[in-house]
């Protein structure tokens, strides 16, 4: 494995909406080897503070050969709040790239489904695929929850937005858009499409159900509590679809095939 623990300079940090931030750091080692769907652990305490103690897992939103490493996150608690207070000129400790990312497979259209901040890992994935084969569906309660739409439009052949309040795009959930999708059409092949999803658990469950019903393979990026992110603490256990050993989000995932896990 090639993982790195780096103290990174913050190139930029922009508030995109009320509580959504786009963080760009300079992390050449990590950016060079990162794969879509992988994540990093970021230290959030300021100065020598030991609270919050643990680093916070964030998906790699994008990574560039130049060393530019991007994150897209929502402030939900103490750690993300402290992270959002940092700006250019300051540094942040980043550990990564961690985990097993998306595994692009020979298939027809790639349908990328992101609910809320679940969009975070999908931009890097979209950019790694053939633009014209990529359909991105971004869902949120309202337009304010749809982040980085321009970037997605630049990286994907088709971008569909769904909002629960109808403030933009299709009124409804991401599944509303999925139902309307013509999954047979693809630019150069009649192959079955494949789905990559990230978002709240109920959304992923619904997308998994939709895909399974259609016989489409689906990969999902999951979130669990994590202490280390490196596979040593065994804290990030997640129930497998079989009766066997637990899976571990930080090393067996965070991306899993829909069939690997217990949907409960």
């Amino acid at each position, binding site marked *: 494995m090639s993982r790195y*623990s780096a103290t990174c300079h913050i190139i930029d940090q922009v508030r995109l909406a009320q509580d959504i931030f786009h963080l760009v750091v300079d992390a050449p080692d990590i950016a060079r080897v990162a794969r879509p769907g992988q994540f990093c652990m970021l230290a959030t305490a300021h100065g020598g503070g030991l609270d919050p*103690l643990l680093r916070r897992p964030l998906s790699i939103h994008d990574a560039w050969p130049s060393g530019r490493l991007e994150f897209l996150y929502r402030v939900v608690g103490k750690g993300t709040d402290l992270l959002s207070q940092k700006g250019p000129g300051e540094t942040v400790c980043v550990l990564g790239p961690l985990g097993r990312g998306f595994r692009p497979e020979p298939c027809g259209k790639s349908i990328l489904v992101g609910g809320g901040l679940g969009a975070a890992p999908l931009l890097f994935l979209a950019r790694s695929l053939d633009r014209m084969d990529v359909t991105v569906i971004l869902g949120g309660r309202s337009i304010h929850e749809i982040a980085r739409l321009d970037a997605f439009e630049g990286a994907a052949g088709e971008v569909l937005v769904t909002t629960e309040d109808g403030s933009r795009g299709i009124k409804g959930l991401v599944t509303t858009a999925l139902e309307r999708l013509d999954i047979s059409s693809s630019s150069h092949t009649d192959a079955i499409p494949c789905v990559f999803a990230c978002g709240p658990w109920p959304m992923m469950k619904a997308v998994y159900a939709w895909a399974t019903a259609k016989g489409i393979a689906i990969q999902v990026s999951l979130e669990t*509590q994590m202490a280390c992110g490196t596979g*040593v603490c065994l804290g990030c256990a997640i129930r497998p679809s079989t009766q066997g050993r*637990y899976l571990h989000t930080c090393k067996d995932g965070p991306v899993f095939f829909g069939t690997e896990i217990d949907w409960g």
Partner: protein
Amino acid sequence: MPYFEQKSTRPLPRTGVDLAGIKFKNPVILASGTCGYGQEIDDLLDLELLGGIVVKGISLGERRGNPPPRIHETPCGLLNAIGLENVGLERFLSEKMPWLRKIDTAVIVNILGNSAEEYVQIARSLDRVPGIDGIEVNISCPNVKAGGIAFGADPALAAEITRRIKTVTSLPVIVKLSPNVTDITVIARAVEGAGADAISLINTLLGMAIDVKNKRPVLANIFGGLSGPAIKPIALRMVWQVARAVEIPVIGIGGISTSQDAIEFFMAGASAIQVGTATLVNPGSAAEIVAGIASFMDKEGISDISQMRIP
């Protein structure tokens, strides 16, 4: 010339320690359960820079561990209820030892059984396995129902397990104590009397957290073990007490994340220390602690770890 001579009369700090018959390059060891079987963080931390590694607790059979959620962050601390998920004795020997054997650092195997008999069986199987330098007997795990803490809170049981393990192995036996007791020196003296070669302490303190939103304990197991900087003052106090109660060496554990913390434990009487939760937060911690200890000794003109001890 005189200047050169003056320099050479000052010996380099000797960070190495011989403890319970085990030679450690330096007194910094990775704590059980926070470094897997070593290989998992080999790319992030050069194990050969460290004194040693204590692998994840091994049970006779493979264990699935507790259902999730297993971990929860607390102020300056971490609650865990992993429940001793591990590959079991057989797979440990066949799958993990070949890699560990190649690493130039002391390898200690942490063991846990459901009964005295199981401890004995595991200890016997580890005897004379090449590459294993010692056994750490976990009589203090708060996260498994049978075994663990039950043995660690009872001086007679703790002594009996120690005694029986000593009869089946020629490996140095380190007994790891639980802090969840009224008087830790009683247990310490009991295992010393039963032949323990060293004592390590502390394991985690029993704690819990409640998920106010969902009105239930956060951990599926309800209780978990508290580790990290939050517990350091308690760990240090217990090491101080035990170091003054027994003759055998003491390995200090609990909330150590900087070389400053480690030095507090040496001053309290520890001959070596283990780094646990700090490795989870920052995989490079242990190596940084090694460097910090050496530079402190150098600056203070200390030539041996034991000199730091407060009488």
